[in-house]
């Protein structure tokens, strides 16, 4: 507890005390310079200036706005606007450029890559991974296998209009549910799954008939996946003869795929992000390692 005692001279140091006592501890009076006190008062006056100029006291509804009308949200928006203005010359150059020609202009390419990387992180990474590595059911964008084609304008089309959505230009690729819709029975599905595994050099499952599977394949699958299972970019039919699998290469997963079918979905990004951002994304994705 703080209490007051009569100020007196400290016996040990010979210095005056302030007269404040805390639990028997007294404070020596080491006087500060008066200018220090004036600066302290000046900071108080300064703070009143802050109340007047900047948003400060809360009221029942809202708060004091300050005569400058400044607020942090507007400041951020102004900063963003400034940033956009700063980028505008390059953004305009990208908007006017032919997408195939971007790579020939080193300065534009540097800008487009940075632009695309940022847009990818904001919009694409949740499904395709921060580095474009994909996940089960979400295509890997850095390998050399493309469901809808790996040419830069094909990539741009896929990003711009998406897959399996309401946009009139959307890509649409549906793998039928051969089992659920009773087109094939369980044995046929097991056989064709084994046959599909052999297309890329994998071992067929035991107790399945690969030759019977080949027949099933020829009758049901070749329309989309082709006679050798090489797929078709036009239809979004994956290549079944390579080492890359969107959902998995084990027998059970392939069986499930044939049983229940598959359908990819991706939003149409151009209406959300605008054409220039989509172009930058296409250039960026094309450069990730698999572009054709």
């Amino acid at each position: 507890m703080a209490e007051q005692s009569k100020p007196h001279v400290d016996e040990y140091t010979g210095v005056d005390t302030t007269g404040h006592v805390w639990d028997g501890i007294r404070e020596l009076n080491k006087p500060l310079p008066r200018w220090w006190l004036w600066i302290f008062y000046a900071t108080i006056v300064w703070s009143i200036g802050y109340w007047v100029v900047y948003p400060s006291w809360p009221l029942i509804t809202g708060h004091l706005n300050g005569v400058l009308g400044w607020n942090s949200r507007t400041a951020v928006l102004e900063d963003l606007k400034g940033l956009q203005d700063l980028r505008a010359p390059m953004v305009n150059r990208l908007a006017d450029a032919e997408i195939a020609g971007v790579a020939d202009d080193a300065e534009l390419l540097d800008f487009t890559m940075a632009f695309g990387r940022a847009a990818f992180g904001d919009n694409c990474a949740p499904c395709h991974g921060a580095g474009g590595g994909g996940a089960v059911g979400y295509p890997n964008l850095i390998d050399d296998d493309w469901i809808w084609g790996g040419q830069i304008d094909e990539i741009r089309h896929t990003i711009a209009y998406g897959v399996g959505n309401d946009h009139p230009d959307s890509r649409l690729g549906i793998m039928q549910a051969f089992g659920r819709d009773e087109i094939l029975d369980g044995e046929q599905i097991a056989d064709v799954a084994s046959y599909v595994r052999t297309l890329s050099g994998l071992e067929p499952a035991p107790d399945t008939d690969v030759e019977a599977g080949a027949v099933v394949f020829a009758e049901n699958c070749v329309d989309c996946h082709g006679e050798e299972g090489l797929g078709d970019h036009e239809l979004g039919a994956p290549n079944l003869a390579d080492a890359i699998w969107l959902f998995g290469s084990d027998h059970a997963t392939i069986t499930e795929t044939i049983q229940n079918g598959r359908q990819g979905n991706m939003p149409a990004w151009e209406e959300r992000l605008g054409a220039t951002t989509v172009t930058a994304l296409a250039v960026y994705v094309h450069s990730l390692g698999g572009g054709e």
Partner: protein
Amino acid sequence: MTTAEPTKLAEDFEEPFYKPHEKVYPQKVSGTYRRIKWIVLFVTLGIYYLTPFIRWDRGPEAPGQAVLLDLPNRRFYFFWIEIWPQEIYYVAGLLILAAMILFLMNAVAGRVWCGYLCPQTVWTDLFLAIERFTEGDRRERIRNDDGPMTPELLARKGVKHVLWLMIAWWTGGAWVLYFADAPTLVVDLATFQAPIAAYVWIGILTFTTYSLAGHMREQVCVYMCPWPRIQAALTDEDAMNVTYRYDRGEPRMSAKKSVAAHKKGLPAGDCVDCHQCVAVCPTGIDIREGPDLGCIQCGLCIDACDTIMEKLGRPKRLIAYDTDLNIRRRMEGTPEKMRIFRPRTLLYMALIAGIGLLMLYGLATRSLLDVNTIHDRNPAFVVLSDGSIRNGYTVRILNKRNETRRFEIAVDGLPASTLEVFNAEMIDGRQVVEVGADQTRAFRATVSVDSLDGEGSHAIAFVIRDVEADTIATANEMFRGPGSNE
């Protein structure tokens, strides 16, 4: 410190909580330490004001200023040294070196920094000299300030403030010249073409110099600066300090009285209590009261006391660089000891030498070509449609030379691997890239193999070779495949 009578009440001595500013009127003095201070003042201010104008030829692509902090381009030039942001640890090394030197100076001879080298001391000294020039010496200034304000005094004070402001303005002006080409900026400043930031900085430094050196003076040392507190904690009994030798000086009495005392066989000290040491003190303390936080140890009281002792025909150095321990030794009749080399100072010297050599080594072996690589993390590797494995990297080449250079990028350590560098030029099957003068440039590269021997990570290295010269830079990396620890 004397112990006060416990019965004495505060009314007798009570001090206010905030004390009014007592202006210090340091008196003119001459002598050894004053001379040292003048020399240090001219040298340090000379370095500060003139350095930006020293030219240094670095070729057409680089700035021709010897000392330049090029903030927009993130380069620091110091004569033949050019430092990139990646090498900012040199600055950290310099700061550590400076701290160690400060500790060593303190352990050997007290507050050498405060008394002679600190900008606050140097500029205050200069401002005091101007005050003395315009308003006269101590007695005249005290008399004038006590008396009424006459037009003449007003004029003299006016001249003083104008001179102070001119120096302060020049101080700010010199500051901004370290950040841009000095001769160009001087012209720009004069023709109001310079960036607004330059004027703002000149304004700030004009204000701080004028107020700190002109008005705050010793208040900065006593109340604002942390160093006196740190210094007090770092000092020890062997450190030399500006000391009043009370063994010789006490009991103090006038010259006449001391003759009488000698006749009676009574002790008489050499201090005649003339107060010259107090009159010349820039912080207004009395050195005879013992070690003081306010004492910046400039040695001016030594000069003042020596002058008096000389007139009286007594030995000089009643106030001198000494230790309290030696004073007690002399009083006890034991021999004095001067221990400059003691474990503490030797440690500081070793650290200074060690850090200095390390930095010199770093500078001498500084490479003008460097490469950093970043391995793609997500995913660490990718399997291609033919089953081969590919890793992606960002290869950043730092060309620290003032000319555009071409480099071959190659990968080492993985047999039968294929390297592809995006946007590289293929020359005879080699991947060649170009990096502009004094620039960094990042390239995307992939390394692929058909199959890997064994699982896990494989150590590889990116080798960057200057196509014209045979300079090489290497970055160690990993190649990851299935089963490797991501």
